[in-house]
């Protein structure tokens, strides 16, 4: 009888402990997410409130008045506080999409080669590619600037696309190599026996299976290009080539910085990136290859 009571107490205290741990876990998670999301939230808030409130010390947490003036002004053209946001957006889109497509195409070819073929100097080449990632992009901006000036590709879409492809290719190769390694070799062989050429086997079997991985490589490459500032600020000058991050600088004048306008432009920048990530996210489900081979 007594033993039974003790046992019940043990059970209820274990249950209580588990619940408490659950609550602590949720609080911890909330704090972590808050830390991550707060800057974003602050940008959205700041884009909607007057400069006085933005600069206030101590900070005003709850906005007193909300207005979309900054957004209206942004699109109202030069002279009325506007900047060429449509042009910047177009430049960003062209440069990011083109360089992503190229980087992913090269990444697929390279990643596949590293995953499937044996060739001389394979590991050295791979190491070399990875080492390029250790050089900070900004360190290259000055030599790149001189080179581009000589070649006459400064302040062009092409120049920036070239720089971004070079920036992203090692990364996409590395990522896509990993995903192709996860696709069992047997599958491509089975496809070849089923009548495929090597090329068909790749597109019919290996590509769909590595698809989620390739999509994630594409997102990362796109976001890198979309958000890149250091190189773009060196290599572009005019409205015809400047990207959105560089466009942010339009809000700095000699003596003033229009924080509100800058935040509004930042929001405009974030929205497409966020949308894209959400769209592609559902394709990033792993475990697609389970059941291909034994198990």
């Amino acid at each position, binding site marked *: 009888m007594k033993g039974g009571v003790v046992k019940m107490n043990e059970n209820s205290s274990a249950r209580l402990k588990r619940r408490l741990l659950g609550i602590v876990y949720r609080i911890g998670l909330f704090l972590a997410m808050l830390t991550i999301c707060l800057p974003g939230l602050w940008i959205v808030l700041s884009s909607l409130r007057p400069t006085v409130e933005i600069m206030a010390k101590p900070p005003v947490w709850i906005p007193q008045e909300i207005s979309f003036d900054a957004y209206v002004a942004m699109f109202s053209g030069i002279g009325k506080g506007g900047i060429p946001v449509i042009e910047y957006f177009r430049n960003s889109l062209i440069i990011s999409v083109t360089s992503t497509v190229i980087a992913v195409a090269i990444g697929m070819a390279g990643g596949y080669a590293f995953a499937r073929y044996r060739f001389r100097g394979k590991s050295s080449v791979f190491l070399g590619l990875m080492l390029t990632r250790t050089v900070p992009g900004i360190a290259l901006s000055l030599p790149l600037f001189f080179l581009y000036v000589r070649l006459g590709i400064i302040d062009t879409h092409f120049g920036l696309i070239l720089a971004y492809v070079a920036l992203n290719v090692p990364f996409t190769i590395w990522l896509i190599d990993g995903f192709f390694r996860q696709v069992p070799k*047997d*599958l491509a*062989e089975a496809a*070849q026996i089923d009548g495929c*050429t090597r090329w068909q086997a790749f597109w019919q079997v290996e590509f769909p299976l590595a698809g989620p991985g390739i999509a994630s490589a594409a997102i990362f490459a796109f976001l890198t290009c979309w958000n890149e500032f250091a190189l773009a600020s060196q290599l572009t000058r005019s409205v015809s080539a400047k990207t959105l991050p560089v466009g942010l600088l339009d809000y700095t004048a000699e003596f003033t910085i229009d924080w509100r306008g800058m935040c509004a432009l930042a929001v405009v920048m974030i929205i497409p990136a966020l949308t894209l990530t959400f769209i592609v996210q559902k394709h990033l489900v792993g475990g*697609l290859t*389970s*059941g*291909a081979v*034994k198990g």
Partner: protein
Amino acid sequence: MATVSLKKLTKRYGNIEIVHGIDLDITDREFIALVGPSGCGKSTTLRMIAGLEEISAGSIEIGGRVVNDLPPRSRNISMVFQSYALYPHMTVRENLGFSLKIAGAAKDDMDRRVAEASAILGLDTLLDRRPSQLSGGQRQRVAMGRAIVRDPDVFLFDEPLSNLDAKLRTQMRTEIKKLHAKVQSTVIYVTHDQVEAMTLADRIVIMRDGHIEQVGTPDEVFRRPATRFVAGFIGSPPMNLHEATVDDGQLVFASGAKLPLPGQFKPNVAVGDKVVFGLRPDDIYPTGHGISSGGAADVHQIELPITVTEPLGNETLVFVEFNGSDWVSRMLNPRPLKSGERMTMSLDLSQAHLFAVDTGKTLRS
């Protein structure tokens, strides 16, 4: 017609030769099993026939046509992989019909052939599932179905049952045998399991270290093993093999124990020859409990102590000590035995084997 003929087939990786110029002729509709321990080159040989591995020298003919440099798709073969290699992003139906789709078959032709194959293998209810939703045995069947749909000249099986549990393996073994009876194609079947090879194949090719040790029907390789290796590899439990020296009408073992020299080998050995004596467990039995008790020509009786017994119900494996080691014997109609008990054992020397110590080759003429 789908004969397969290997001529001096060789595979090298760099300087290392894996398959050393093997010759093999497989007749139409024959079920051939390539069997041997892992690393013996059997899978490599199969992959060369499939076209998944380039050949280093020699030639491969399928249906009289040299296919050395043809890609797998031009060889009209099907292969069932050890891992099944089902396409995970396709349903069972799409898996089965994939080769037809690639070949550009008409929709109704494709449906008909997929339906035929799934009927043969009982996959009708699974056609809309994905491989991840299937059990091991079902995946195995889909893999075979995918091979059937192509209606190939030659079926290649690469250890298809080794991922299944023992019960399912026995079941699928029967299904493969039925399948071969139905589709009547040439089959090349790679396995490391000699029981699979024995039960399925018309002829067995036993390989070791990239060489063919022996080619023969299950009965031939069991009763007349060409080498010591084959003798030890085929049969379960394995043959008792012990080294001995030929003396005047006798075999003298290392411990000094002696057995009469089996009559059939007398013309082929001389006094002083070092030989390996082999006797299957079936040919050693407690007197009165054997298969060949009665009419056997050359039975030698000897009293030996029992070390261990393994009762299997219908028979008992009895380990007896002779020449300082355990010899396994098979006791039919068993009675309970105690270890340490001494029993009169019958050794049917007419079934014995002798192999040369140095070459390992049989001394049977």
